[in-house]
């Protein structure tokens, strides 16, 4: 008994000492704030924090993002080296489990380790959870994927390297309208992303003379068979000609695989946003065949015919064997933005970096295109490509067949 007490006491003591040594170590290495050396050879290493959903609801994307993150930091360092700049960067990746509490804990941990720039978290709700801490402690947050309109706030420490959903909703509405469809059912996640997207889409589509019926589904479920069944009867009763699906990858793939077997839903057109682009489930022959047969189309934010993106994509495929998932080019560029902003600021200080970031973004052209930010710290311009799933050399692949830029739709390939 006494031994057990002692053991636990030691355990706790060990943990506390471990933590203390951790702090000591950070203090020693200065959390990346190594004093600037006059010597040319002495390089300074800055840490960039990443709060990514490596587990939890978004883990299927988050795990791939982690690989993008390491790849990006690697590439950034190579770039610094090729420019003979004495700066190096190091990625510190923490898992936030797709929860708000852990996201905040991660940002706090980064703050304690002296890290001033954090990339992530992924979901808008998580960004909201860290906003108050980031603002008052001057930690720059760059979310690659938060698109919630309620976060479009000027002059804070939150930056988002993604276009607002309002823009994409417009592109998607134009696409659906172009395909000659007059009435759709919008089937969307009931979270903030889905709700806002659906509302914008309805507004834009009805401005074009169409009619959109909204139908939401609970996003945190395991399976959506019953939702798909309700969707089917909705489509029938409304006489809709198409479904617009606003989803993420896992839920979207699940919904589509059920819709494939539905007598009504398998016969009509389907459209989608960017959420499921890149999901490997859609490329399974049985599903892909159906998607091809109904001319499944979607929009996604991308810079049109961007060689940097092609290069990034190729590199990522070589590294992992899979297509880059949604928002990964945004994440990739966010790393570069962060790196250059630190260099431009000349000091590893949150406020300076925050002020430098919009300037850097103004001139930065990366895999995701031109990264200029608006007054809210969100991406100002965004072009979209039209994607579909097609057979290429006997294999189903994601293919971009057109673009939406400056309010006009162009097809580069015949759908």
């Amino acid at each position, binding site marked *: 008994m006494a031994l057990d007490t002692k053991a636990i006491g030691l355990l706790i003591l060990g943990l506390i000492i471990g933590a203390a040594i951790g702090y000591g170590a950070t203090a020693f290495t200065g959390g990346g704030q190594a004093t600037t050396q006059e010597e040319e050879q002495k390089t300074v290493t800055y840490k960039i924090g990443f709060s990514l959903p490596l587990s939890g609801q978004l883990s299927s994307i988050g795990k791939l993002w982690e690989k993008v993150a390491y790849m990006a930091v690697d590439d950034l360092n190579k770039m610094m080296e090729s420019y003979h700049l004495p700066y190096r960067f190091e990625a510190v990746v923490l898992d936030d489990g797709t929860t708000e509490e852990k996201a905040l804990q991660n940002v706090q941990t980064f703050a304690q380790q002296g890290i001033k720039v954090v990339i992530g978290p992924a979901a808008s709700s998580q960004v909201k959870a860290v906003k*108050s801490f980031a603002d008052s402690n001057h930690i720059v947050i760059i979310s690659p994927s938060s698109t919630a309109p309620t976060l479009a706030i000027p002059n804070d420490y939150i930056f988002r390297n993604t276009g607002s959903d309002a823009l994409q909703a417009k592109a998607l509405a134009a696409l659906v309208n172009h395909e000659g469809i007059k009435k759709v059912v919008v089937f969307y996640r009931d979270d903030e992303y889905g709700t806002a997207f659906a509302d914008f889409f309805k507004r834009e589509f009805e401005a074009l003379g169409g009619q959109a019926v909204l139908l939401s589904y609970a996003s945190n479920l395991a399976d959506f068979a019953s939702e798909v069944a309700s969707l089917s009867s909705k489509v029938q009763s409304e006489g809709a000609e198409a479904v617009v699906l606003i989803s993420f990858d896992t839920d979207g793939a699940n919904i589509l695989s059920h819709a494939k077997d539905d007598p009504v839903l398998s016969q009509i057109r389907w459209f989608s946003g960017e959420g499921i682009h890149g999901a490997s489930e859609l490329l399974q022959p049985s599903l892909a065949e159906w998607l091809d047969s109904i001319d499944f189309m979607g929009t996604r934010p991308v810079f049109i015919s961007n060689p940097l993106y092609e290069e990034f994509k190729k590199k990522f495929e070589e590294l992992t064997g899979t297509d880059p998932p949604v928002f990964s080019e945004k994440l990739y560029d966010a790393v570069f933005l962060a790196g250059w902003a630190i260099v431009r600021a000349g000091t590893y200080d949150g406020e300076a970096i925050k002020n430098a970031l919009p300037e850097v973004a103004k001139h930065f052209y990366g895999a995701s295109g031109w990264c200029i930010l608006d007054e809210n710290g969100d991406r100002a311009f965004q072009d979209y490509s039209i994607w579909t799933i097609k057979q290429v050399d006997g294999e189903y692949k994601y293919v971009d067949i057109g673009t939406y830029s400056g309010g006009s739709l162009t097809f580069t390939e015949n759908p």
Partner: protein
Amino acid sequence: MESIIGFLISWLPIFAIYGILSISLNLEIGYTGMANFGKVAFYAIGAYLSAALTISVMLSLVGKNVPLYSIEAVQALSTEGTGALYTHPAALVGLFVLSLVLAFLVAGAVGYLITYPTLRVGPAFLGITVLAFGEMFRVFMRNYEPLGSTKGLFGLNNPFVWLGNSLLSQGLFALVALGLLLAVYVYAERFVNSPLGRTLRAIKDDEVAALCLGKHVPRVKATVFFIASGMAGVAGVLWTFYQGSVQPDTFVPILTFYVWAMVILGGMGNNLGALLGAAVFTLVDRALTFAAGMMGPSLIIPPNYLRWMIVGLVIVLVLMFRPEGIKPARPIKTPAWEAVKEEVGKDG
């Protein structure tokens, strides 16, 4: 040094929140034997109540009539220097205190009402009923537009943000949180070391026998549930002001079970144990997060996953080697002891 202060001001409120939650759960399970699997519901009630109250009152103070979750609301509240949080310090602190009181009363009242229908079913199903209630509350909040539905409510900050200096305001908040935890702990200690505490233990042992000894068991249980749920509501208020936002999906059932782990690790039926359990759990979690950040990607097991595996293993190992928890249950201490000594001594 600075990072240690930074660690303390970010950890102490979390410790206080979980400390209060585990003391309140300990009152229910450790002393009274009520297995509550829905603690998170009352935590959520406190959090939502304080956020909705504070944001709406602050907005009306600056004469803004906009939805609570809108960008305009966030800007009106929290723009540094000019937002309502900065220009109305007295109101902010007042609302914080009012939230604490109201959250205690409202969450407590809900808890009180919930126990009554479940008594019919027997103790085994009390927990499940509350769990179901909590999930229903969460799903409802996800769909309730006036309180932000899935957008949640945000734009708040800690109640001392108007001080300007973030270290000072957060430090002060950490101290207040710690003070609240201390108050809850002292209250719980005095609450159980009394004839009522004796009755609670008796109800835990055998509620039917307690009923036969004239104890109004349903009322006692409902009272304990009132107090414990009210405490959880107070923890919810702390959470709102700590994080500055409220999101419906924070309040998932697993949070309740983390609190369970804290109580059982610390030792059931011992308030100090519950406190220690919360401290160990949150500290282990933070220390491992910190370590994971230092380790880098080179390990065979990715450090982010390893960190969680260690958390799981720590729970299992502590229970294997010390099933009664870090601090075993303590006897009820009332002045009866001293009286007995006098009485026994009299005979010589």
